[in-house]
């Protein structure tokens, strides 16, 4: 009886252990892929200060992330000149907004229209 239980246990456990051992490399592979993607796409920061986007022109690749950080005195936003392409909420002082790059773009602060910036594809 005891031997039968042991054999039954092995029969049940074996497939489970087998499946786990097979799934682990896949998981590692996915992790590696993610790590590779992270390495390919970089993150750049545009500092909003002294009523300017710094840098005003940023060279980027599709898939990169751009973070805008408001270090100015007042609230700003980031709005594409191309209607509806992208726009941030109002960025209060000290706040950030980020976006994944899909194309080159010209943008401005719609609160202070003299503030302008560009994302240029490499």
């Amino acid at each position: 009886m005891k031997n039968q239980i042991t054999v039954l246990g092995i029969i049940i456990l074996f497939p489970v252990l087998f499946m786990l051992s097979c799934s682990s490399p896949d998981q590692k592979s996915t992790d590696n892929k993610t790590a590779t993607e992270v390495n390919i796409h970089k993150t750049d920061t545009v500092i909003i200060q002294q009523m300017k986007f710094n840098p005003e022109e940023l060279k980027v690749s599709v898939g990169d992330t751009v973070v805008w950080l408001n270090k100015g005195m007042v609230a700003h936003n980031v709005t594409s000149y191309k209607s509806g392409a992208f726009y941030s909420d109002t960025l209060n002082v000290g706040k950030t907004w980020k976006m994944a790059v899909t194309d080159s773009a010209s943008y401005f602060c719609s609160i202070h229209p003299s503030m302008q910036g560009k994302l240029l594809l490499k």
Partner: protein
Amino acid sequence: MKIFNTLTKTAICLIVSTGLLSFPASAQKSQKLTDPEIASVAVTANKIDIDYAKIALKKSKNAQVIAFAKTMAKDHQAVIDQAVALVTKLGVTPKNNATSKSLMAGAAKTTKMLEAKKGRAFDKAYVDNEVAYHTAVIGAVETVLIPDASNKELHDLLVSAVPLFKAHLEHAKMIQKSLAK
């Protein structure tokens, strides 16, 4: 440099004296303003533009003018908040003075003029005044308040406010052009 400053101050006096604007002659004279006086002038000058914005928000139906007035109200309040936070930290009490009093007197005249207008005439008068007022304020901050400020933090706050006022001026000029069409 001294000659340049004198010329700039004279130019501001001329701009101010030709209109309802109001950086008074006392702000341009050679007598140095103290930090409490500078704090008072800075807060008063910002408060005046908030009051103009309130009139615009009450009277204008032009979307551009309304958006601009909202920005003026928020931005100048932000400058006041930072100035008040700084003088509180420094233990400086803003001191009413001839310049801030004269600013208020000039603002009363401008307010009366704005209140008397309506429609497109109001929009034009408000935006024209914003162009003239910001021009005068930038001149006064650059040639009087910044050079006279003794405390470094007060000096730096005034310096960092100049690009904001210049952006406001550019924005006002954009609307002025658009209203002229």
